[in-house]
Every structure is written in structure tokens, then in C-alpha cells.
């Protein structure tokens, strides 16, 4: 938990609440242990101390704006704390006319990157208690105490992040962060996977998805998974059967990924939310790479650009068509 970021967020939130610019502020709050973060909705200045800047904050707050989406006609003016990826999600939602910009006050945060519980669990094992000391975390596990540096706890999407600064905001807090070298675009792991033989890749898909229990936590954590009725819940026609048949599991996640084409901002909330530790970013990041290479589009970066599947160019590549 960064003290200085926490203080500046509280200060900005207090200001806009007192001035009556917003009815409430959506921000990060401390969860029930040091590795948990929960969203908080602050509508009174007395509660302002519940706002924090978390260490393990891989949730996308833009998700909670959907409760106040345009079609619901809610009157609220909303303040929201947004790190780089959250702000890109807000842009994506604005583009799809899900929320109104003039009812939003965005407290942008220059985000230094979050830590992941999934990564901690992978590296440390079954964690009983955790505490931080400076740039290290020490975990008490069932097999003894382990110390891991913060950098090693970052998820792959934060390590590869190119948008630490918020894309849109009304006020920005935190020191600006130097974006990493553009030469390395952060998709090397995807290209490495592409080079494996096809049967091995199919095997990997099936083995990853076999752990899925269809709890849909990934869908609920995602701000761009916001259909009124998800294709997986529709029974007429029944796109995907209920149950844990392997191809159903794979197709459910493939179609979810496909629906994210040009909308996913790589916030990593889906993978962090998965109770079974299924790797999901290797799919969504591939989708992002495809959209970038084919259509030169990156989700939520340019508020003016049309979503890639809602437009076309006459000269789009068609090398795959007979």
C-alpha cells in the first residue's frame, strides 16, 4: 500500500465530495486481509479513510460504473479512481455509449503496477499470512516463510504494461512513470507460444480449460463483459451446453475472448478473479495482438477511434480468403 498515493487520492476525493461535484466516489478499499482489495463506494467525507491505494489491486473499477449505465437512467454523479487500464476501460465503455462522460469525475492515478495473488500463490504455495516490508513481501505458508520481491509478484500484464498513465482523467495523482522501451512490445510470450506445434497448443488449451468450473468470475470481473444476457446463459439457441464437457469449456472461453476483440485493455482482472488459477491472459493478449497487427487498433487508447469490428476498410488484408 503506497502511503503517498493513498493520501493524494483521499485528498482529491474529499475535495470533490465537499464541493458537491459528485454524489459518491468509487475507489479501492482494504479487503479482509492484507492481500485482498475490495471496491468501496464513499458518499460521506467521514468515510474517506476507507479509500486506499492497494498493493494487490487487480480489480477493474470501471466494472462498477455499469450499475449506473446510461440505459438505467440513474441520476448520480460519480467519482472514480482509475489507474491506467481502468481509464482505458472507461474509454471503451464511453465508446459503446454505456456511460455518460458528463456524470463522471475521474481521479486518474499514475499506476506503478499491481501485485497478483495468483502469482504469489504460484511462487509461495498455500499462504497463511502475509506482510510487507518495503519492496519485499514475506509470506507464511504451510511449508515455512518465504520472501518475494514486489517485482516478482507482478502479473504478466503489469510487467508488459505500456499505459501506466490514465488516458482520460479530470485530475491526476502520483508521479508520472517512464513508459518502457517501445522496442519490446510485451507480446514476446505470445509469439513464443505461437511457435509451438499446433497439437501442443491445442493440448495446452484443453488442459488449462479443464480446470474451469464455470463460475463466470472472469466475466463478472470484466468491465467489457457487460451484455444484458451472456451467450453462455442463453438457452434458445443453446450456444454452449451446461456442464463441464471439455470442448464446451474451451469454446466458452474462446468466444468470451473473441467478444473482447478490440475491447480488452489487458487489466488482468479476469485472471486474478479465477478461483481455479486458469491462465486467461494468453488468450486475451493474443486477441489484442491480432487486433493491433491487423487493424492497428489498441483498446481504450484513442477516444475517437471506432471499435475495430464496428468498422472496416476496403483494403483490409484478406490473404486467408480463397
Amino acid at each position: 500500500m503506497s502511503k503517498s498515493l493513498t493520501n493524494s487520492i483521499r485528498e482529491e476525493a474529499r475535495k470533490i465530495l465537499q464541493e458537491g461535484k459528485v454524489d459518491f466516489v468509487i475507489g479501492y478499499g482494504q479487503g479482509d486481509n492484507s492481500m485482498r482489495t475490495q471496491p468501496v463506494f464513499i458518499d460521506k467525507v467521514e468515510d474517506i479513510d476507507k479509500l486506499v491505494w492497494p498493493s494487490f489491486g487487480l480489480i477493474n473499477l470501471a466494472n462498477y460504473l455499469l450499475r449506473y449505465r446510461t440505459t438505467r437512467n440513474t441520476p448520480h454523479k460519480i467519482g472514480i479512481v482509475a489507474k491506467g487500464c481502468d481509464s482505458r476501460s472507461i474509454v471503451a465503455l464511453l465508446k459503446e455509449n454505456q456511460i455518460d462522460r458528463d456524470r463522471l469525475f475521474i481521479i486518474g492515478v499514475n499506476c506503478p503496477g499491481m501485485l497478483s495473488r495468483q502469482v504469489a500463490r504460484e511462487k509461495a504455495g498455500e499462504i497463511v499470512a502475509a506482510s510487507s516490508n518495503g519492496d519485499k513481501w514475506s509470506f507464511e505458508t504451510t511449508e515455512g516463510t518465504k520472501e518475494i520481491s514486489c517485482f516478482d509478484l507482478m502479473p504478466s500484464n503489469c510487467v508488459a504494461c505500456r499505459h501506466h498513465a490514465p488516458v482520460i482523467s479530470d485530475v491526476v495523482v502520483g508521479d508520472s512513470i517512464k513508459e518502457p522501451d517501445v522496442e519490446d512490445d510485451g507480446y514476446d510470450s505470445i509469439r513464443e507460444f505461437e511457435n509451438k506445434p499446433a497439437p501442443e497448443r491445442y493440448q495446452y488449451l484443453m488442459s488449462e480449460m479443464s480446470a474451469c468450473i464455470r463460475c463466470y468470475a472472469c466475466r463478472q470481473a470484466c468491465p467489457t463483459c457487460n451484455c444484458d444476457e451472456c451467450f453462455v446463459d442463453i438457452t434458445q439457441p443453446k450456444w454452449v451446453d451446461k456442464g463441464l464437457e471439455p470442448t464446451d469449456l474451451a469454446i466458452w472461453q474462446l468466444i468470451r475472448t473473441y467478444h473482447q476483440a478490440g475491447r480488452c485493455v489487458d487489466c488482468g482482472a479476469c485472471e486474478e478473479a479465477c478461483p481455479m488459477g486458469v491462465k486467461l491472459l494468453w488468450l486475451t493478449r493474443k486477441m489484442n495482438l491480432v487486433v493491433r497487427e491487423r487493424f492497428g487498433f489498441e483498446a481504450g487508447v484513442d477516444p475517437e477511434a471506432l471499435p475495430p469490428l464496428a468498422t472496416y476498410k476496403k483494403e483490409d488484408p484478406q490473404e486467408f480468403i480463397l
Partner: protein
Amino acid sequence: MNDDPKILAFLCNWCSYAGADLAGTSRIQYPTTLRVLRVPCSARVNPQFILKALQEGADGVLVSGCHPGDCHYLEGNYYARRKFATMLDLLEYVGLEKGRVRFSWVSAAEGGKFAEVVKEVTDGVKQVKDTSQFLKKRDWPSE
């Protein structure tokens, strides 16, 4: 190797379906592997159709529409092209064998081309080693 593949073909009503018709009335020979499903436009084909077809036992899927610029609905096939490009890239990324999912543009005047496309797609599907990818495992016999 699969000598008698089943290929599900989504043909657009205005071009490819008429092209298939022309191939028939012109008495052009082509493989009998296709099961044709007529759709109003190639953009009607939701990429979920393709996965559903593979799951239900199709060895291959062909989607065919009007040439760019010739769409009956003016721009349907341009949108379809973007959808299919992203979906195909994703499917090949997760290891779907090449040749199982194909796309083509066939106009109403191209009966000959339609026959060529069917031949090529059929040959492609015959080369596929493992058609059990994405095939749904049922614990009862299929009808």
C-alpha cells in the same frame, strides 16, 4: 486421413448460393462433401456458428460470400472479413489444424470457381490429421 469428410458450407444467398446453383446447372463436377446452409449474407455467420459446427461433428467449415464491393447489403462482407480474420487467427493460435475452417468469395457468375473452391477445401480437410479437435464428447451414441 479422412476420405469422406463432412463439410458444412455457409453460402450467402445472393452470390455463393447462386454460384453453387450455376455449378449445378452447368453440370460441373465437384466433390460431394458439402452440406450447404443458405444464409442471407456472409455477415450473418456468427463465428460461434463455426465452433458449434466443429463441436457437432463437421470435419470442416466453409463460409462463402460475395466479392468485396458486391455485397447485396453493400458492406456486409467487409464486416464479415474482419470478424473472420480475428476468429481464424484465434483458432489457429489455440492449435486448430489448418484447413478445417476456410473462407471464400464466390460470385453468382462463378460456377467454375465454386467447383474449384470445393475441391480445394475438400483436399484441405482430407489432409487434416486430427478431426477430433473441438468434437464434443457425448456419453450417448450420436444419432
